[in-house]
């Protein structure tokens, strides 16, 4: 037992033991970053799996988020004759908040669940035990490639999401608010070029940093729930459900605190 688990066991609370294991797993995955060169294949496989396979959903959702933002903000701003500012509002909201968060939520539903189900099935069919018996480092072999893959993929998907969201907002700005599309785009880009940090707009890199943290969190929670699965198929179902629920809770809580730290 690692120290976190021991504290948990002392408190006799399974959720605390679970959280302890999840933290331990996160640290263990980070400690094995140096193994990645020999894990290139599984890393690329995982990136393909969580990147390409969630891409269409992520883009679809964020296009609509951009449209929703433009619609709601546009009508309010129009009441004060400020509809020109809709580009600024949409791009700031997308890049800082909505793209990282909505992408993370979609990834939690699609990737964290898949990781929990896959590792959970391996756990209950004793495949994970077999790896332990063969002295294969489970954290290095199963966890590290999954965690790194999602940590890298999440910011990439988030970037695309932000672009698509801004375009979605543009469509509404043009068709519903009667704005000039080029003017809208110029306003959104200007909003981002503010406050740049070594040439990278502040809004962009903080959004991407959040996305990386979300990707890391989601994958660690997915793997942790999978590896803790017990009791056959229903156990795998439970761990999948817990993985999605816990990742979404963590994304939202983390989003608040990260926002507070970054923008204060």
């Amino acid at each position, binding site marked *: 037992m690692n120290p976190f688990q021991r504290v948990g066991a002392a408190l006799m609370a399974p959720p605390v033991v679970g959280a302890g294991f999840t933290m331990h797993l996160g640290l263990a995955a980070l400690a094995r970053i140096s193994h990645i060169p020999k894990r290139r294949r599984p890393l690329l496989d995982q990136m393909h799996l969580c990147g390409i396979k969630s891409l269409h959903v992520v883009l679809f959702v964020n296009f609509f988020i951009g449209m929703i933002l433009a619609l709601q903000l546009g009508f309010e701003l129009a009441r004060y004759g400020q509809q020109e500012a809709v580009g600024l509002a949409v791009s700031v909201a997308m890049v800082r908040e909505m793209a990282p968060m909505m992408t993370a939520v979609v990834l939690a539903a699609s990737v964290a669940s898949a990781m929990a189900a896959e590792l959970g099935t391996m756990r209950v069919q004793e495949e994970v035990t*077999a790896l332990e018996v063969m002295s294969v480092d489970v954290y290095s072999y199963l966890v590290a490639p999954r965690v790194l893959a999602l940590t890298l993929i999440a910011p990439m998907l988030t970037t695309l999401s932000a672009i698509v969201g801004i375009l979605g907002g543009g469509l509404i700005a043009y068709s519903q608010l009667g704005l000039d599309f080029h003017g809208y785009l110029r306003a959104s880009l200007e909003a981002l070029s503010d406050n740049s940090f070594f040439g990278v707009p502040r809004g962009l890199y903080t959004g991407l940093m959040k996305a990386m943290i979300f990707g890391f969190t989601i994958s660690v929670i997915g793997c942790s729930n999978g590896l803790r699965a017990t009791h056959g198929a229903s156990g795998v179902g439970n761990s999948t459900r817990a993985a999605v629920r816990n990742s979404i809770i963590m994304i939202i809580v983390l989003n608040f605190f990260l926002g507070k730290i970054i923008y204060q």
Partner: protein
Amino acid sequence: MIKLEGVKKAFGTQQVLDGVDFHVPEGHSLVIMGPSGSGKSVILKHIIGLLNADAGRVSVMGKNVAELDRSGLRELRRDMGYLFQHSALINWLSVFDNLALPLRETTKMSNSEIRARVMHVLDLVQLSAAENKLPSEISGGMQKRVGLARALVTEPNIILYDEPEAGLDPEMSASVSHMMRELKEEHGMTSVTVTHSVSCALTVADTLAVFEKGRFLISGPPTEVLNSKHERVREFLGAQLD
């Protein structure tokens, strides 16, 4: 080489092992028989350090398994092979990759050495033709033999077989039993086997033990055990001997 002294283990209120004692010297083969659900697999899991005893002591090659840290356990397991009751092959790796995995992960062997070793053990279990198939594409009996090959591929000194004959046809089952015997006689392998098959037990065992309700009812040379006057032992084995 493998020694259990007064080992007890309970899951919740269920006392699965209630004082298990045995000693398997080097090059010796112990076969354990007993009713389903009595805790035979649990005994094997104690020997390889997957479960820890509530009381008593499990030692393998002079080391107390419960006291080993992660690297000590890794060291010990390198010398051990484990055939899982349900094969436990990695579902997304081909048969070849399943067998190559422990060699790739824990040794510095070259690819050609790995290939040679894997093809050799696959040949032993007569599955050379299945090297590129996924576990889901082969039958349960074939999976069992791949599991056996995987347990052998690292050339361990100690091997734990959990129902090696389960799911195999009579001919294949006999051939696996003979292979197990050969490994013992030619390579001096030490083994603990759990089985439901008397003929497998007779082929493989130096010592046969019958396990029920957390304890060994009897243990000794196989012929002695089969001819024992112990009522419960006769009852249990009799069903198969008739």
